[in-house]
């Protein structure tokens, strides 16, 4: 007596109905949306701050006493950008000429000058850079370099040679044979960012799936659902739904990061960053399926929402460990981690960015990750079905695995 209204999805396609609900409910969840917006704002802010710091020019007013020609020459060359430190264009020096030492001190006191440079009176005494307080470090370094250059040039001229002759052949340039243009510093930061994305996506979306499982278990809604569709379908729908959300979230964040990076000095390495990011997305997508499945089990092991903290803590610790270890790992440890799931989700893309992988390495690591994920999902599916109908207190993994799975609760 199948009614005419039963023209909808078959039980086999129920996972799609479940996944759609998971996605819609999550996407409309205020906490989730706010969290995502805050993270985007943080990334934007970080990028803005970085590029501001990069483009910022510091300006200094430096006083020089009339008649102190050496100091005046040194400061002029600094102000014109011709001095030894001319490559640094983020510092701007303005020369303030004053009549005498008293006027210079007065200028320091009323802050019309940031510092006062006086040359060694007799020619071989000390140069002095005075400030009302300790003079700015950047300025002191620049002035020091300039003065040194000027004095050395004078002396070179005195013995009939030139600075260029003296320093010829003394420069050391660095070269790397792998041709990779990515700064190790950038690799480190990228490692940090990827570890953060992984941790946030995994814990955030993982907690969501655990919460949605316990919501159904605690309210016994799962009994109604179980009579309608196989629990396997329910679990699959939840995993797919939360994976889509986690993936979407990471794509958005990675996109924001990459677009933002194009406005900074990092734009030169955008291609290798993008490649690394794509690897990360692929690894994360595969790995998250396992994380989501395990979180679903954690949800089913609880009997009330309050138990979740307990049942999810082993997973939380694992993810936390991955987060901490991967962004600080390097050398052999990083090489090893890049093959061990779930650390490989972060470590392999970082190695790709650093350019020290052979072409087959990410593929091998991915294969290991896929195999691990398949194993984790199969295990989880069994535990989930075993634990879901057990009420009254927390369920242990062991009893979840041992439980009979009802007459029709199986496939």
């Amino acid at each position, binding site marked *: 007596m199948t009614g005419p209204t*039963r023209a909808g999805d078959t039980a086999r396609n129920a996972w799609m109905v479940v996944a759609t609900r998971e996605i819609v409910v999550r996407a409309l969840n205020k906490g989730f949306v706010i969290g995502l917006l805050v993270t985007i704002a943080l990334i934007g802010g970080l990028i803005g701050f970085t590029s501001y710091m990069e483009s910022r020019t510091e300006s200094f007013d430096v006083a020089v006493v009339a008649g102190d020609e050496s100091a005046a020459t040194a400061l002029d060359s600094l102000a014109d950008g011709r001095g030894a430190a001319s490559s640094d264009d983020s510092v701007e020096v303005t020369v303030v000429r004053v009549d005498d030492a008293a006027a210079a001190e007065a200028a320091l006191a009323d802050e019309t000058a940031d510092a006062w440079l006086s040359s060694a009176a007799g020619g071989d005494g000390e140069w002095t850079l005075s400030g009302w307080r300790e003079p700015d470090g950047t300025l002191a370094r620049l002035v020091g370099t300039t003065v040194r250059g000027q004095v050395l040039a004078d002396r070179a001229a005195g013995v009939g040679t030139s600075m260029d002759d003296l320093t010829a052949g003394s420069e050391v340039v660095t070269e790397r044979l792998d041709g990779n243009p990515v700064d190790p510093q950038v690799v480190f930061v990228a490692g940090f960012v990827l570890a953060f994305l992984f941790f946030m996506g995994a814990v955030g979306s993982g907690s969501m799936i655990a919460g949605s499982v316990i919501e159904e278990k605690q309210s016994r809604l799962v009994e109604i659902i*179980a009579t309608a569709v*196989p629990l396997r379908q329910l679990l699959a729908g939840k995993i797919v739904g939360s994976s889509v959300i986690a993936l979407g979230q990471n794509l958005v964040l990675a996109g924001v990061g990459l677009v933002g990076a194009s406005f900074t000095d990092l734009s030169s390495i955008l291609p290798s960053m993008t490649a690394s990011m794509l690897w990360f997305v692929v690894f994360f997508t595969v790995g998250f399926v396992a994380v989501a499945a395990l979180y679903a089990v954690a949800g089913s092991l609880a009997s009330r929402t309050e138990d979740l903290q307990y049942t999810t803590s082993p997973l939380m610790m694992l993810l936390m460990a991955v987060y901490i270890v991967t962004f600080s790992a390097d050398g052999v440890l990083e090489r090893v981690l890049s093959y061990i799931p779930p650390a490989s989700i972060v470590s392999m893309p970082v190695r790709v960015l650093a350019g020290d992988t052979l072409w087959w390495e990410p593929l091998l690591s991915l294969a290991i990750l896929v195999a691990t994920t398949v194993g984790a999902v199969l295990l989880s599916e069994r535990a989930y079905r075993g634990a879901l109908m057990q009420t009254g207190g927390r369920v242990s993994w062991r009893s979840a695995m041992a439980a009979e799975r009802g007459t029709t*609760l199986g496939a």
Partner: protein
Amino acid sequence: MPFFRYFAGVFFASPSGGGAGSASRWIRARAGRPSVAVMSDLEVRDLTRVFASGGTARRAVDGVSFTATSGLLTGFVGGNGAGKTTTMRMIMGVLAITGGEVLFDGAPVTRADRREFGYMPEERGLYPKQPVLDQLVYLARLRGIAPAAARREVLEHLDRLGLADRAKEHVEKLSLGNQQRVQIVAAIMGQPKALVLDEPFSGLDPAAVDAMADLLREHTRRGVPVLFSSHQLDLVERLCERLVILGGGRVLANGTPDELRSSGVTRHRLVLSGDAGFVRGVPGVRAVDVDGAVALLELDDDAAASRLLSAALERGAVHEFFPVRPTLAQIYREVTA
């Protein structure tokens, strides 16, 4: 007069389904079986469930057999721990069966059958933070109802239960009674082939009980078996065509309310003009209670009744002599004692 109320409810309180026509169908249903729809009984045979914990095994349900006949309301009665919920969970497949089987339409029940059963678990719950309409449509879709049809049907049911204007509200904003109604809608969506409802009346006010009873009647009129558990005996007596009394995991009694009542020992009440003490001496008569001119008696057979009446008339006038049929509550107490 509970029976009258029930009867009136069918005639006057049925908002849809065409009063007189459905009532006459219902009368036929009372007389025999409904002739309007395909009939598929829900039957359990030797159903057994053993819970093993910590080395001890407890038989929560022990060889339970009964039939929830199509087109009839079957009441499932029993005290706490009698095994009602365990039995229903096994029928619905959410609990593994230790022994025995569940049959639908004469064949072992399948997952596909259960997908079209309406089920209301003992403990109530819905997604607290999802709007009423959305989650009912979701549950309907899981049972294979097309989205548009699901929406239409849900709105129709909500309208009937007076919840149409709450459709967009989150479930947690509703009162418990209204949450219960939403739960009922979840069970009866999509023209279920059978209804298995665990305590569907608990927490409902009298008006809601009547509305709920009407709703269930509509489904029995379609020829669907409806099995519901309750501990409200008066309600069960008033509503059910069949009754299964469970105790300690076993079926203690099973039949129509009339059958159950007549299966009990029928007593007779005798009121005389004078003292009734003499009845103790009449062969085949056992005095349960004698108080002055009034006696409550158990009679072995018709001959004993004749002897009793002759003896009584010799002594004076007989004001009353009639059988006292036990109430369901008495039967229940008797069989569960």
